[in-house]
């Protein structure tokens, strides 16, 4: 049985994803996600307890670089594309 995607799940996941959805979008999302999950459900039932997960298709180990200082992006360039800047930093707006 695929996981049940109801309105509460959609609301919860949208909050986790920091995505405002309209009522209509939530209903569309519920329907479409249910359809996709039904399709992908075939992988849930497989017994794979003996199979290790792949996190990286081409194995690489211990990729390290020297911990040496190097020039970073100049502040004015780092801030160039920001919607709002204040006091040499990104302006975030009201927190509360």
């Amino acid at each position, binding site marked *: 049985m695929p*996981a049940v*995607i109801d309105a509460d*799940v*959609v609301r*919860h*996941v*949208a909050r*986790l*994803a*920091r*995505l*405002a*959805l309209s009522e209509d*979008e939530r209903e569309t*999302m519920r329907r*479409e*996600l249910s*359809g*996709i*999950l039904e*399709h*992908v*459900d*075939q*992988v*849930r039932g*497989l017994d*794979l307890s003996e*199979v*290790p*997960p*792949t*996190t*990286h*298709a*081409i194995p*690489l180990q211990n*990729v390290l*670089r020297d911990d040496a200082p190097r020039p970073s*992006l100049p502040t004015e*360039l*780092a801030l*160039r*594309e*920001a*919607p*709002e800047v204040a006091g040499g930093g*990104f302006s*975030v*707006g*009201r*927190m*509360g």
Partner: protein
Amino acid sequence: MAGLTDLTAEQAIAALRAREISSVDLTEAHLARAEADDWHAFLAVDRDGALARAREIDAMPERPPLAGVPIGIKDALSTRDLVTTSGSKILEGFRPVYTATCVDRLERAGAVVIGKTNMDEFAMGSSTENSAYGPTLNPWDRTRVPGGSSGGSAACVAARQVPWSLGSDTGGSIRQPAALCGIVGVKPTYGAISRYGLIAFASSLDQVGPFARTVRDASLLLGHMVGRDPMDATSLDWPDPIAVPDAERLDGVRVGVVEELMGEGVDPGVRDAVEAALRTVEDLGGTLVPVHLPHSRYALSTYYLIAPAEASANLARFDGIRYGHRTDHAENLLETYENTRAEGFGPEVKRRIMLGTFALSSGYYDAYYGQAQRVRTLISRDFEEVFSQVDVVASPTSPTVAFPLGARTADPLAMYLSDICTIPVSLAGLPSASIPCGVSDGMPVGLQLAGPALSENRLLATAHALETALAFDTRPPGLA
């Protein structure tokens, strides 16, 4: 200036080196086509920047290896000061402060960037219809899609707006549009090309690669991009230089025909064209071996858990604070995030963020994402087993030819099925190429070849020999 835009990159380089043509003339000829753009392949054309660079290269006493040949760059690749949107409204007007390593390497080698090509938003799609800036049209038939997500990069090469271009491929986004536009597309081994400056979709799958009208051109471009980059910890030290292939025989080459990708779900016309191309393998001295990828039937499900999960994490950076769009409608920080993203992302991106966030959420992680990573191991093992018997595997690139605009936009799953042949290879991180191999319903058909990790030279040699024998005409009928 007729004819300049029909040159392959290799022919153009020879003419540039012999000083028979200038980079300025060659760039002008391509700019004119890119600016007319009857296919909406480009999101931005950089006339001034391109001509300035062409002039510089023309003035050099000795031409650099790529000699001043124009190129189109997928809009997912950052280009310093040149607007880069990844096909999304959330990055409208965004000017990166640095250039992607792969683009930087090509520019240093003498490539002239003439513009940024259209794509599905954040590379999520198989038709370029998910671009926030409108779809690209197929140069073979303007009522059909060019494929995706790198549809602009494929269309611009087919339409002679550039001789070659760069795309990115996560589940098929180079190979599938190459197939649907009748050109060559190569997705190299995962890690072959630095992803630094590639706007991330699914980091364990994303890979940059070339589009061209010949395998030799694609090989030449690839050769200038591979190799370790300190800015991408997953980039590989490249063992052997990429050779520009010239052999025309396939003696001793064992080509595995993937049975699971030749049957149900593949259009008969596509199958016929692919089977005819495979008979050519035997004519050239190669042998065909039927092979099986038994877990490939789980590949689509696996991909649609892994890629959205990684995307949901990668796209968290688009929050309206550091760059890109910020909402005007927010009372607090949470609303700034939620409304910025609601206004900036299109429907497919939202769908995948939701799916990925769900697959990673507490209580579901092991059942979905964790399970998908284990199936990924099984798919890789299938390929290992197959490559103990054969050198290369072959299948259709796409189960259908280019479909009409709008045909699959209402049904996400139908769209996802476009990538059923390319996704298994992506999950295993293997190198793969699509070459045009015939026509069905008046539209080009792509043959997908894939090999073991790091086997690019053998893969490209096989592709070149087949391409030469098949002698496919890459010029779309009626192209002005």
